[in-house]
């Protein structure tokens, strides 16, 4: 890739490799509010319509959980929220005016409890009850939860979140999804112009900078890459499935072994680019609830969507010409524990090479992980 594209990727990487990026600082200097949210099922559109800067929480840069461990007494919780919480205890999330959790999994519920009793001191701490079953009844229920959430934001921050503002935020985020789908389309090429870790950088940056600006930057990147295919030897093409997916390091470890990650179904990546929120719906809260609970309910927390998850992975395998699927779950992640086991069996039954591995949010067992991934690539002829 040319220097121009490389420097644009560098821009996104700088955002995704830090927590307090220049946009956060700038926003705070102008007295804007930043609200962190812990799961993409919580619509950032609501926060944008309130005039806030939504920041999808991550543990970037954390190297221990010493302070958080004082709060998480149970040993059965995964390392992602513990690292995020530890950063908050260290003061790295001091810029937050509010933080919102979903009832996505038990560990996140514990983050909510711990955040409330900790000295972090975020002024607004809120939990949205997020359904674990897809369907019309649950979409209606979730609409109600979002209405309560809207009211709570309005009351605490003394703002008004109108349907009109919500409609505008929905349009902006739909544009982001559309641009990100164009970005993902580049991965379908025989020699993708961007590596999997570059894609992670671009995707993560989208969760921590003003959306309109992000859309403009992404549009520029897509225009400058154009249809360029890079030359070189064809690499083994992997798809990444499972927990989180916000750190470039894990993808780098995989790609340094000679493969290229061309697709993913993770919370910071492929899972959030599907479809669009209905802009025609007169009730934008209903549109947001339906998007999450009925139209795009493939998150592993959804108990009745196992077939849909399998189909999503299988169709990505064929669309992106995936040679093998790499499933990864964070240790103690219950949500992905059973899922990956079942998916593994289903993939093998469909004749698709698959490997599942357990890891920690901050990779402390790089040697083991690379041995396994290398062996997996060798079994596919890599």
């Amino acid at each position: 890739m040319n220097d121009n594209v490389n420097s644009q990727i560098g821009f996104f990487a700088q955002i995704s490799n830090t927590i307090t990026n220049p946009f956060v600082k700038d926003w705070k200097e102008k007295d804007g509010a930043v609200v962190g949210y812990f799961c993409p099922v919580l619509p950032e559109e609501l926060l944008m319509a309130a005039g806030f800067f939504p920041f999808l929480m991550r543990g970037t840069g954390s190297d221990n959980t010493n302070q958080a461990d004082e709060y998480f007494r149970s040993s059965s919780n995964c390392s992602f929220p513990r690292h995020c919480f530890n950063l908050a205890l260290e003061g790295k999330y001091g810029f937050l005016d509010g933080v919102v959790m979903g009832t996505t999994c038990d560990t996140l519920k514990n983050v909510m409890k711990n955040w409330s009793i900790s000295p972090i001191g975020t002024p607004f701490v809120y939990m949205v009850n997020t359904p674990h079953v897809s369907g019309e009844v649950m979409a209606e229920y979730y609409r109600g939860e979002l209405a309560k959430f809207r009211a709570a934001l309005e009351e605490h921050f003394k703002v008004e979140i109108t349907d009109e503002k919500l409609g505008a935020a929905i349009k902006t985020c739909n544009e982001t999804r559309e641009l990100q789908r164009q970005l993902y389309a580049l991965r379908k090429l025989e020699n993708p112009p961007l590596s999997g870790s570059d894609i992670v950088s671009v995707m993560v940056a989208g969760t921590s900078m003003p959306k309109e600006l992000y859309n403009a930057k992404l549009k520029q990147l897509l225009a400058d890459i154009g249809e360029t295919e890079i030359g070189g030897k064809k690499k083994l093409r992997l798809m990444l499935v499972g927990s989180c997916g916000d750190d470039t390091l894990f993808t780098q470890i995989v790609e340094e072994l000679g493969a290229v990650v061309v697709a993913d179904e993770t919370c910071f990546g492929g899972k959030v680019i599907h479809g669009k929120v209905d802009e025609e719906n007169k009730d934008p809260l209903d549109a947001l609830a339906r998007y999450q609970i009925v139209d795009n309910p493939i998150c592993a927390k959804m108990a009745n969507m196992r077939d849909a998850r399998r189909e999503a992975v299988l169709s990505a395998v064929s669309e992106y010409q995936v040679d093998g699927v790499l499933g990864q779950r964070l240790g103690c992640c219950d949500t992905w524990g059973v899922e990956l086991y079942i998916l593994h069996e289903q993939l093998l039954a469909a004749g698709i090479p698959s490997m599942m591995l357990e890891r920690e949010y901050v990779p402390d067992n790089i040697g083991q992980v690379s041995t396994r991934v290398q062996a997996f690539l060798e079994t596919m002829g890599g």
Partner: protein
Amino acid sequence: MIACGVDLGSTTGKAVIIKDGEIILGEIVMATVKPAVTAQLAVDAALKKAGLSSVKDVAYIVSTGYGRLNVALANENVSEISCHAKGNYFVDPTVRTVIDIGGQDCKAISLGPNGAPLGFEMNDRCAAGTGRFFQVMAHVLECGIEGIFSADNVSPTPTSISSQCSVFAESEVITLVNNEVPLKDIITGINRAVAGRVSSLARRAGVADKVVLSGGCYLNMGLRAALAEALGCAVNVLPMNPQFMGALGAAVFAQEKAAKAGTQDGGAGK
């Protein structure tokens, strides 16, 4: 043609030379803190046994094991999963399941009829179910690793060890010692606990007859018996020293790669 495989494990280094089809096992050397140094020691030992004077006589060298990266004398590295599969299958093509218990890891590999790995599983970072676990227990019991491995210490009335963590299992064993539980019962209990962990790992990878045990822990007679019981099938040990299977697999890869590349003698070290 002369090819060499070198397996740089966490505890020991091993090298194997294949000289015109003849397999020559080197010596087991203790791992140093520098894999490149361990590699040199292991390869030198194998060269000596093969009657060769210099690494320059070797056409191709493949490294494997934890220290496989950044070993300058190797032409390339292959993961230990592929090498253990290759080595065991090379010695006995009827092998379908390889269980390798080394110093700090434990792996189970299921092989297809052509010897290619169909699936594999490895223990996670923890040391339970590895050679290190036995070393810790030998220290606590003051019986030496030989005591843990001895067929004389297999008891019909084993105690139960329920902790899956080496550190917690250590305190569990100390409690048993303090309660004057017979040594044999504790040792058999330890071997059964490891066999239990290893067998569930193996079942995840897929177990099919013939099952072989490789790696240094093949010497543990109590573990072999407990593993056979846990898996419900015979656990075999190949006629060639099972500690060299990773190095042998690497040597077979080296031979294949040299043949493919048409490399002549004297190509090692890049």
